């Protein structure tokens, strides 16, 4: 069963007051928004949540299945080392003082 859902991103125009499609999808993972994906082929997946790399891969592959493009996700940059869930060993970097 797919964990990723694409929902049309609709919005109310602040000038016209009318609802219209914003040419991008809201990307939901397990029913919760994690990003946006433009409608054009190859548009990047713009993440809005910090999700682990393995989940990013799931999002990319399932969007590929749904839309047939090979878009890559732009990960949220700036993750501090103490937020790095892929780091398994303590004391392997100079800033591991934050891990303790």
């Amino acid at each position: 069963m797919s964990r990723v859902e694409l929902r049309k991103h609709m919005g109310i125009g602040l000038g016209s007051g009318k609802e219209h499609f914003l040419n991008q999808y809201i990307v939901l993972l397990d029913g919760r928004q994690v990003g946006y994906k433009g409608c054009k082929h190859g548009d990047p997946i713009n993440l809005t949540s910090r999700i682990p790399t393995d989940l990013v891969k799931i999002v990319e592959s399932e969007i590929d299945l749904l839309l047939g493009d090979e878009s890559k996700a732009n990960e949220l940059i700036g993750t501090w080392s103490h937020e790095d869930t892929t780091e398994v060993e303590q004391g392997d970097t100079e800033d591991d003082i934050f891990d303790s």
Partner: protein
Amino acid sequence: MPSAYYTGEGATATFPGISSACARSISVSGFSVDKIDATCLDSSNFKEYIPSFLKEPGEVSATFRFSGTLPVASVGDVGTATISFGLLDGETTAASLTGSGFLTDVSTSEINGTSLVEMTVTFAFDGIGTEPSFTAGS
């Protein structure tokens, strides 16, 4: 029922050439409309105004932690900006502001060795393509 206290927690901003960088602050200029003085000689008490038929689509600016690249190539290119306000408790999709336009300015803060280097970008809604649009969180 989601709580309705937006603090900016989890907010993100994407612009042409800048996707999901670490935003430190985001500001949205007000959408405005000019007023036209329609006062008549026989008006009383107050001057009279009517709204202009065109609205100012406004701008969005955001400050990011500098990531080592500047999207100067995107300045002037038309694209889409999306400001996501972050998810409140109980929400599955975030409130957002989206519209087409172009980057008008990209700059960095002073590099002085004692404070974080930041990048500030300004995006002007163009009022031509996708009009600035608001989506409520749900």
